[in-house]
């Protein structure tokens, strides 16, 4: 049984929790998801850069990048042949001279955390939990305080920069909405719809989790022990991710935190310490007037 953050947030009888399962082992790095996301959500351009990091010229998720395809080139020694694209003509015999490498690709996105720090710390209630269990910014309420930005343990959400009046929603925190508008109409989010290899799968989270477990078991049977799920475990520091992944290496290789924890987990402790400190200050102030001249 999948936890239901929508019910925890007060929705009565919410629909099943929706999410993404991004199976990076079949990603071909076409960036159709990035493009479809920009198009559907009318996300403004955020620069044309040459970053010199394989085929990744996007850089990172941010206010104007809600899907981000990462490219990692690794020496072949640790690699497993996944039948991914290679250098040379199809069917050509390998002459063994050049160094082989493997290419890891991952389409990254907001994780729609079960325990979402961005939502917890938002002081206006702009960030909210939808009936689908996703996390969405209400752009007409956000006042751009920026608190969600350092709160997110994945570095996803950001405040949009740009020229006021030219770029839309400048100064407002923005991120993936899991296509909240499309979900209302029973449609698949734009990125998953556009993905030609079903690397991005959309659906009911418990079903996705079962499918992902099957996939990873099959891969292990096929002799790919590096395959692992990331964010599929509800006992992790964020209560599991609404958008989780199948990875072929350690999370940090993909720029993901290896053991993310929602910062508000320690909040009761923080308030306690702050309360004690406040009392100490009050006591100190009383004491300094109580003694001597």
């Amino acid at each position, binding site marked *: 049984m999948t936890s239901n953050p929508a019910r925890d947030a007060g929705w009565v009888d919410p629909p099943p929790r929706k999410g993404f399962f991004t199976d990076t082992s079949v990603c071909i790095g076409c960036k159709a998801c990035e493009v479809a996301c920009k198009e559907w959500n009318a996300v403004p351009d955020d620069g044309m850069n040459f970053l010199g990091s394989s085929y990744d010229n996007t850089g990172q998720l941010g206010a104007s990048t809600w899907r981000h395809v*990462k490219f990692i080139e690794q020496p072949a020694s640790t690699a497993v042949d996944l039948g991914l694209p290679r250098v040379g003509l199809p069917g050509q015999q390998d002459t063994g001279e050049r160094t082989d490498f493997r290419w890891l690709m991952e389409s990254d996105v907001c994780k729609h955390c079960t325990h979402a720090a961005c939502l917890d710390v*938002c002081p206006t209630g702009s960030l909210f939990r939808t009936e689908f269990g996703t996390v969405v910014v209400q752009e007409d309420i956000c006042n751009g305080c920026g608190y969600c930005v*350092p709160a997110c343990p994945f570095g996803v959400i950001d405040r949009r920069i740009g020229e006021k009046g030219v770029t839309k929603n400048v100064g407002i925190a923005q991120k993936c909405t899991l296509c909240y508008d499309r979900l209302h109409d029973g449609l698949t989010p734009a990125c998953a719809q556009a993905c030609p290899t079903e690397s991005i799968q959309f659906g009911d989270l418990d079903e996705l989790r079962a499918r992902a477990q099957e996939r990873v078991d099959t891969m292990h049977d096929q002799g790919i022990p590096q395959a692992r799920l990331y964010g599929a475990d509800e006992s992790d520091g964020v209560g599991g991710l609404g958008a989780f992944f199948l990875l072929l290496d350690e999370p940090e290789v993909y720029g993901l935190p290896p053991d993310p924890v929602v910062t508000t987990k320690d909040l009761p402790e923080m308030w306690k310490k702050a309360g004690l400190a406040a009392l*100490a200050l009050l006591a100190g102030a009383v004491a300094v007037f109580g003694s001597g001249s």
Partner: protein
Amino acid sequence: MTTTAEPRRRRKGGGGERRMVPPAKFTSYYGRPVLKASPWEKEIPAYLFLGGLAAGSSLLGAGADLTGRPALRRASRITAFAGITVSFGALVKDLGRPERFANMLRVAKPSSPMSVGTWILTVYGPLAGAAAAAELPLPGVLGRLTRLLGRPAGLAAAAVAPAVASYTAVLLSDTATPTWHDAHRHLPFVFVGSAAAASGGMALVLAPLGETGPARRLAVGGAVLELAVERQMEQAMGLTAEPLHEGRPGQLMRASRALTAAGALGAMLGRRSRVLSAVSGAALVAGSACTRFGVFEAGQESARDPRYTVVPQRERLQRRG
């Protein structure tokens, strides 16, 4: 290509500060940050500093009022109101959409320190204002009214003031920013110490010698608390304390320690010297500002360098087995 980065070289001749943990290898995605540093600029550390100054001053103002120290009372009440007004302005200015500030007041969320803080300030600000108004030479009924309200408002402001001083530590710590988060057990004490030092220091600058006894004691006590707990904090933090030693935040923290220690010493020795008291007080105020800017910038650095995200999390996983 993924980078396996060696830790940054330590700055040469860095005052003999030792490394807290052995160097660790880690992997990252092209050395890019895992986290996003807050989009906050200098307004936020300025706000932390001025809020602390205001809070301590309200406490001094109330004490001075009750113990018959009119000059200390006046200086403290006015400092408190000026401090909170400017810091509130800084807070609004740092919003991406300042004109929507009022949206902060549509909810009250205990899970958001910024929401809690906004409500604390909403209560505290007007009280500090009413206490300061009593110090104005207003004529007639208005003058009588403000003077009448001065004491209750000042006492109420003093009751809320400790929260103003300490909640800002939670504001920083309740983030994924490694240095801020890992400081969460100690930072509230560092911040109230800093607030006491700043407000006591400001009173030493503004009030006559005869009335500054309590301010002097508050300043010295605050300075000692801040210095002692800050040290403990760094020892408890491990790797994520590193940004507090390096680069610009390192300079700020060293300046903060020097100014705070010198200011406290001067405040103790300067009981009979108006000049020494004022100079020491100014040093304490400056030291408090350096603490806030230093802690703020160290956190920003810790978010920008994936090392401070990946290494402690890897170690945590290893400990768990």
